[in-house]
């Protein structure tokens, strides 16, 4: 089950998107998330969709793999879609069956919201799939640097983030191991009443917490003995490099925003 999760996974490659600097990618994703909300008619949504598909092609990540990763939020998408369809009562009445009425505007809104979801999930997934967690944190740290002036512990936040990202797969493996060990002892999470299932989670969670705390302590000790003293005066081994590609996608983001603004109704 957990092998299928794509969140936080990184697929190495050397496509255009892979080669981008993490800073430009992060800025682009933030800008993109904002400009998605500019779109409000068929043309603008089609443009967003087309743009996203081109990005997918450029990243050379197999589409079906992205769709697979969409599954966990499929329920949410469907739910908002249905909500719009049934509760928006504007435009022409398209279809009526007993008390269920579907209006044109509802259908439109439902489709638009679904596209918005799809586009956001794809773009953010591409960010994490083509950028190693380490580069993302590096990029974040540099981008947030100006906020140091306001006493924001930027280095510590970046460190926390890279540690948590680093331990996601480890904890997943650990969960899998403990789950199997308890299953071998007859515990059963996947069947029974809800009460039974909740009870079956305890033998999984307690060992998981115990080992997570132990790991945290070990890591703290390991950092301490190697003389870690926080970010002050620390130089970096991985240098970030901004090149023409990064400038290009900044321009692309700007152009996309302008076109969307012009085409919106």
């Amino acid at each position, binding site marked *: 089950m957990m092998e299928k999760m794509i969140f936080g996974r990184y697929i190495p490659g050397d496509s255009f998107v892979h080669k981008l600097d993490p800073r430009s990618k992060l800025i682009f994703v933030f800008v993109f998330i904002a400009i998605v909300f500019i779109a409000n008619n068929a043309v603008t949504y089609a443009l967003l969709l087309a743009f996203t598909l081109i990005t997918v092609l450029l990243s050379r990540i197999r589409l079906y793999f992205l769709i697979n990763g969409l599954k966990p939020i499929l329920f949410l998408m469907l739910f908002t879609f249905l909500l719009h369809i049934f509760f928006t009562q504007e435009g022409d009445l398209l279809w009526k069956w007993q008390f269920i009425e579907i209006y044109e505007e509802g259908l439109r809104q439902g489709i638009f919201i679904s596209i918005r979801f799809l586009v956001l999930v794809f773009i953010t997934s591409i960010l994490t799939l083509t950028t190693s967690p380490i580069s993302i944190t590096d990029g974040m740290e540099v981008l947030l640097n100006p906020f140091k002036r306001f006493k924001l512990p930027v280095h510590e936040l970046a460190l926390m983030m890279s540690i948590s990202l680093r331990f996601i797969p480890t904890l997943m493996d650990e969960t899998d191991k403990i789950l199997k060990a308890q299953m071998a*002892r*007859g515990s059963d999470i996947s069947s029974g009443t809800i009460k039974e299932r909740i009870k079956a989670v305890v033998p999984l969670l307690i060992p998981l917490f115990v080992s997570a705390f132990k790991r945290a302590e070990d890591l703290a000790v390991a950092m301490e003995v190697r003389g870690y003293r926080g970010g002050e005066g620390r130089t970096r081994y991985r240098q970030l490099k901004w090149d023409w590609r990064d400038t290009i996608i900044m321009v692309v983001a700007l152009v996309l925003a302008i076109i969307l603004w012009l085409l919106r109704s």
Partner: protein
Amino acid sequence: MDIQLQQVGYAYAKGTPFEKRALFDVDLHISTGSYHAIIGHTGSGKSTLLQHLNALLKPSEGSLRIGDLTIVAGKKVKNIRPIRQQIGIVFQFPEHQLFDETVLKDIMFGPLNFGVPVEEAERRARVLVEQLGLPSEVLEKSPFDLSGGQMRRVAIAGVLAMEPSVLVLDEPTAGLDPRGRQEIMELFHKLHVEKGLTTILVTHSMEDAARYADHVAIMHEGTCVINGHPQDIFADEERLAKYRLEAPRVVRFQRKIEALIGRPLAKLCLTEEDLAIEIGHVIREERGNL
């Protein structure tokens, strides 16, 4: 309980870019009451293989028969629970699975899950704690207050308390001190003999495999390459080296003695005791010759 694997294969993360083939074409027959050792270099698929033995993983190719239950790749399996009770698995570092408030409750977790009455489960826990050489006071303690070695024993007791007829051991003594290792291995051997258990030991220790097992299977790069009697397997050091394994210490010592006296001993000894007796014979013969 007979276990038969036919052409079993398994791939992790099937259908994703991370797909990894961990097992292929594994044929193995484990007959009731035997003591099988599965040896192999790190990453040879030993642990993946053993998770098939109680259907924690289902083969993606081939089929496997556990007692009366047949599992065929790609088909749904019903009624796994009785199998889980029959086959107890002691995983690597089993102390990581401890969770309950007291040692007693933790040991009773398995049997209670399989519907054993509370009194019976408690009786088993008390007997096992004694068998594993733990003081009976630990029963009321939290498992997290024990030492590493004690935690290991409690976790093992938790598996034995289900009274399985097949015991699968995944490096049960890794990280223990030499004395603890020996005590635990001896206990497993005692149970194997007294209760007629079928025992499957996954191990890095050639010494343990040579001393206890009556069958040895070598795993190499995801498949079972050799399956036979320890006498034959450990006699062929060249073949072992091919799979990045080496003969047990006692065998290597015997080879040195043979080089020294210039002739082979009467048989290949797999335990220190046997070798001592053989050397005794040789010394007696040499004296007779004088």
